[in-house]
């Protein structure tokens, strides 16, 4: 297990270097003069131009710039936002909890519902339950989720008026920000209706964001279960006269969960892409929306820094899932 962990950690290093390289190259790949790009429509005077060139080091040779860039990263300097003049890292940390809260709720919902549906479909293979759940899952990941979000808004917010259209909390609620998680902070504040408001705002975005992972997890669980159900050791389990619930719930599921853990991990990357769309539609103040806004505002330092931070985060999550897989699979854990 130790060797597995170490090997996984080692594999990360070159990939990490690679993503810094890509982030670095990104700004320099943009057509046009980098300083003018950052200045935007306002333009800069020639003196200011030279000043900025020197300040950002654009006049130095490429490799030198890259080394400086890595040096800055190691000091926690991911650049500065041109529009807010704040450090990129600070902006990221301010918005990250919003996305994290949404993503966590979504993945929990997707896992619980998805695994249950997958087991049910596998056990009742060929029945109408199997067909119905798998059809629903198929529709789930065939839909453009931004359209799905709009439909849900039309139904629940506009027509029925049950849920709000945007934001994380009602504008009338003010309470101190402790963790950055609305659900927790609203509870801690003790204000009446705060938690309820936070929950209401969270429901639709969570459902939208959870849809694709739920569908994929359901299908994967079903297929993993089916494969396990055909194994010889399942016959052994049944030949012992064990109850069906034990045979399925323990003997089969424990084995089926191994590939499903990997699937859940892969969905994190999908979640980030989905978060971009979801946050845009629901005006959710997370890093997805931040990236979109920055791209359209041409706030390129933000785009570069954000890209790197998001990729790094996804890599860390993947590493965690990899290690989790090693724990869950006895062939890896006990050599």
């Amino acid at each position, binding site marked *: 297990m130790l060797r597995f962990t170490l090997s996984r950690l080692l594999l990360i290093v070159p990939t990490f270097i690679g993503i810094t390289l890509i982030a670095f190259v990104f700004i320099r790949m943009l057509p046009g003069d980098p300083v003018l790009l950052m200045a935007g429509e306002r333009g800069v005077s020639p003196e200011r131009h030279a000043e900025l060139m020197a300040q950002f080091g654009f006049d130095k040779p490429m490799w030198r710039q890259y080394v400086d860039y890595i040096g800055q990263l190691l000091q926690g300097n991911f650049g500065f936002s041109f529009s807010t003049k704040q450090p990129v890292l600070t902006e990221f940390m301010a918005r990250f909890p919003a996305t994290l809260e949404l993503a966590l709720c979504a993945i929990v919902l997707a896992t619980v519902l998805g695994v249950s549906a997958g087991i049910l479909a596998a056990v009742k293979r060929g029945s109408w339950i199997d067909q119905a759940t798998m059809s629903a899952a198929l529709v789930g990941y065939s839909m453009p989720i931004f359209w799905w979000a709009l439909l849900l808004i039309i139904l629940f917010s506009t027509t029925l008026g049950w849920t709000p259209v945007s934001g994380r909390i009602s504008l009338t609620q003010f309470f101190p920000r402790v963790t950055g998680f609305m659900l927790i902070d609203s509870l801690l504040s003790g204000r009446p209706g705060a938690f309820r408001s936070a929950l209401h705002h969270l429901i639709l975005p969570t459902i939208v964001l959870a849809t694709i992972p739920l569908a994929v997890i359901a299908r994967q669980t079903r297929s993993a279960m089916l494969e396990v159900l055909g194994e*010889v*050791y399942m*016959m*052994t*389990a*049944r030949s012992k*006269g064990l109850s069906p619930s034990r045979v399925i719930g323990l003997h089969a599921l424990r084995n089926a969960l191994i590939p499903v853990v990997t699937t859940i991990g892969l969905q994190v990357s999908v979640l980030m892409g989905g978060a971009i769309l979801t946050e845009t539609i629901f005006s959710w103040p997370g890093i997805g929306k931040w990236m979109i806004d920055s791209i359209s505002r041409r706030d390129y330092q933000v785009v570069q820094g954000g890209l790197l931070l998001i990729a790094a985060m996804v890599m860390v999550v993947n590493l965690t899932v990899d290690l989790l897989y090693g724990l869950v699979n*006895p062939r890896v854990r*006990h050599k």
Partner: protein
Amino acid sequence: MALLEIRNLTVSFETAAGRFHAVKGLDLSVDAGEVLAIVGESGSGKSVAMLAVMGLLPATADVSADAMLFEGRDILALPPRERRRLAGREMAMIFQEPIASLNPCFTVGFQIMETLKRHTDLDAAARRRRAIELLDAVGIPEPETRLGSFPHQMSGGQCQRVMIAIATACTPKLLIADEPTTALDVTIQKQILDLLLRLQIEHGMALVLITHDMGVVAETADRVAVQYRGRKMEDADVLTLFENPQNPYTRALLAALPENAGDGRLPTVAATGNWELPA
């Protein structure tokens, strides 16, 4: 009264090319304490018949028989819960691929003690002791440490011994061994067969040995049933079968033993005649 009595068993499956009858009108009986060998080539339905007895066939299989009696009780008519009480306690089965037969996610000890927990009243400590006893009885060295091993940490032969331990844990009256040594080394084969026979005599179990190896049959069986294409061709005690086979298929099988090869070629089963369909 025979321990296991099967009359006119038919098992069929729905496939891409139509309905496939794996077993056609099979009659079989096994007496308490005897060793019955079921021989046949691949596709003869020998495993399927025994899986039907254990109740291990998938739901897509259609099983019907005039009678399937275990100790006089019609097991086909039993409700599933009753049938599950029989499996593991009165009748048990071991399979062809030993490592694949054990659940890779649980230790060997867990899998043995699970059977004990299901069918006996032993407490945890007693189950553990019994599990060690069983491992010792099947010839696993250092049984106490082995309790915590996973299947992938053991060899094929050792896994088969564990399977035998699991199967005999509650001293069943009938043990079905479906080609238990086919996937093992020749040297290990003999050890496993010897173990099975020893346990069979010790516990007074009936042993149904499914195999395609006539040599094994000669050494271990009391009686032999020969199957071909889902039908029983011949059923006789082992000496009679070898000395005076009635059925041309049996004669062809015996002729196909390597010892009988002349001119450097094995005789084929072809053109040895036809056998009358039973009425």
